[in-house]
């Protein structure tokens, strides 16, 4: 039996360029036992795709490949039509910064020594945008709902929800064309979840960025995204099954 390994189901008439295209990705942490085999997924400009699947199915690995943070064993990644020319530290800056990433645990994703404002400004300073960094940081902080009193604090002085707000601001700092949110809200309460989804959707509405939201909360991703895809197997047969947005779902934010 040969189940279809890949199935593209972009919106009808999708002739536009793809913001992100993953083709026949085989990836994992042991070449003999890859987590993903031959997985393909495309996001059109401005499209929001939710990636669902059980724990351990490889959805986070796929998200890392999409963010150029993990080199696949086989397959190609295209960003805005251009093939990725490297992964991790070998990714060229222009491609690396075209993708903004938010991870599940803000504690693990934030340097504990930095204040929240330094955390948000880090991508700006790292790419030589010192001029205007302070203004941009304030603007980003306002967008995610962090007041000036919180910006001077370090991660251990704020709650998970507040720290994740800073991580979202950091991901938006360089105005990415693609956002990858890997379980962004898994540790957050309902209200903070809704608030951060609204921040992401507000940015996407203004910028036209595409979104790959990874998670296991079907209700959330069906409400949030234009369509959801489900990753099965992981190991022997990775197959994506695609579903359009739930009928009842309306745009977030």
């Amino acid at each position, binding site marked *: 039996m040969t189940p279809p390994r890949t199935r593209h189901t972009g919106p009808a008439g999708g002739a536009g360029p793809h913001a992100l295209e993953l083709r026949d990705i085989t990836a994992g942490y042991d070449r003999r036992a890859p987590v993903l085999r031959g997985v393909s997924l495309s996001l059109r400009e401005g499209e929001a795709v939710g990636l669902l699947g059980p*724990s351990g199915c490889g959805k986070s690995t796929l998200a890392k490949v999409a963010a150029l943070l993990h080199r696949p064993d086989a397959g190609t990644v295209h960003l805005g039509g251009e093939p990725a020319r490297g992964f991790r530290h070998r990714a060229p800056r222009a491609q690396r910064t075209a993708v903004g990433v938010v991870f599940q645990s803000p504690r693990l994703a934030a340097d504990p020594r930095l204040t929240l404002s330094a955390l948000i400004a880090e991508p700006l300073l790292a790419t030589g945008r010192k001029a205007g960094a302070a203004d941009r940081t304030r603007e980003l902080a306002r967008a995610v*709902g962090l007041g000036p009193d919180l910006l001077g604090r370090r991660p251990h002085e704020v*709650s998970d929800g507040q720290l994740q707000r800073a991580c979202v601001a950091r991901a938006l700092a360089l105005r990415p064309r693609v956002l990858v949110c890997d*379980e962004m809200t898994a540790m957050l309460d309902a209200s903070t979840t*809704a608030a951060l989804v609204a921040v992401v959707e507000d940015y996407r509405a203004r910028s036209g960025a595409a979104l790959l939201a990874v998670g296991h909360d079907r*209700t959330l991703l069906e409400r*949030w995204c234009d369509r959801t895809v489900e990753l099965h197997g992981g190991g022997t047969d990775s197959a994506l099954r695609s579903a359009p947005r739930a009928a009842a779902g309306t745009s977030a934010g």
Partner: protein
Amino acid sequence: MSADTLTPETVAGPPAAAHPLLSVRELTVRFRMRGGREVAAVTDVGLDLAPGECLALVGESGCGKSVLASALLGLLPGNAHVSGSAVLRGPGEADGLDLLTADEATLARTVRGRRVGLVPQSPAAHLTPVRTVRSQLAETVRELTGARGEELRAATLTAAGRAAFPADHLDRYPHQLSGGLAQRAATALALVGDAPLLLADEPTTGLDRDLVDRTVDELRAHTDEGRGLLIITHDLAAAERVADRVAVMYAGRIVELAPAPDFFGTPGPRHPYARGLLEALPERSFTPIPGMPPELGDLPAGCAFAPRCDRAADVCATVPQLTGGVACHRPLTAAAGEGPAARREGSRV
């Protein structure tokens, strides 16, 4: 808070609450910080838990939920100042034991693991990484039951089985377990001492929905055997699935305490914060509560939710007491009357 607001009747307890397993009264926890600053982590919490009952404590992160759990286990850091009482009563025990005043030796030798079992937030971090599950489980069984030799081997297997931990995974190290199995291993440890009270602090964080459902169903099954379960969670779906009653915590206080069917169904939540939290769910209106929770070290005078509340009025300048299951000067009334009427009233006075 006066004692009369805390009778079992007004806190919406089941009939069995006349002999509660755990009675918490006026529990207050303050942290003394450098520079004389004080953090009001928990304020005036009162609740009862009956055998066979599950109470879910829900609220945003940083609202004091976990501090409450640590206080019940005597695990607060040295700069914490605790007042009030939390009496744990065994069946037929007249006086019970106040967990807040018990000394460390009593807590260590007779309470933790024996009378109160803790299902931890992060099972992977709770387990020792350098030893197998079997070795950790056997150690706990030996300590709590005194079993030795062949008897210990058998008791360890039984203990694993009670939490549905597969016997063929017992010789694995924690890093070789999936999130769900690590959770079961931690639950197995919590159940060894046959403690009448189970305390589960965010037991489902990071698990996928199927595993969340399975984990809370298993906790529910242990509750149905006659234990009391206090589950602390921010996952409202998990709370709805498992709980008999729901306590909503905001800024260190319980602002609503209601039977779960009333809270999640009709008539629905009565505190504006609780309503906001429920309405933020993606299956409901997916709208966040405006603003953020206040700092516990810098609480506003009066009702701590008033700055974010669309129903706030002058009367909200004083702290509302928990009466009839809700601590709000202007609670929402029955669901039928809400909607447009509520919005009209909601305009600031």
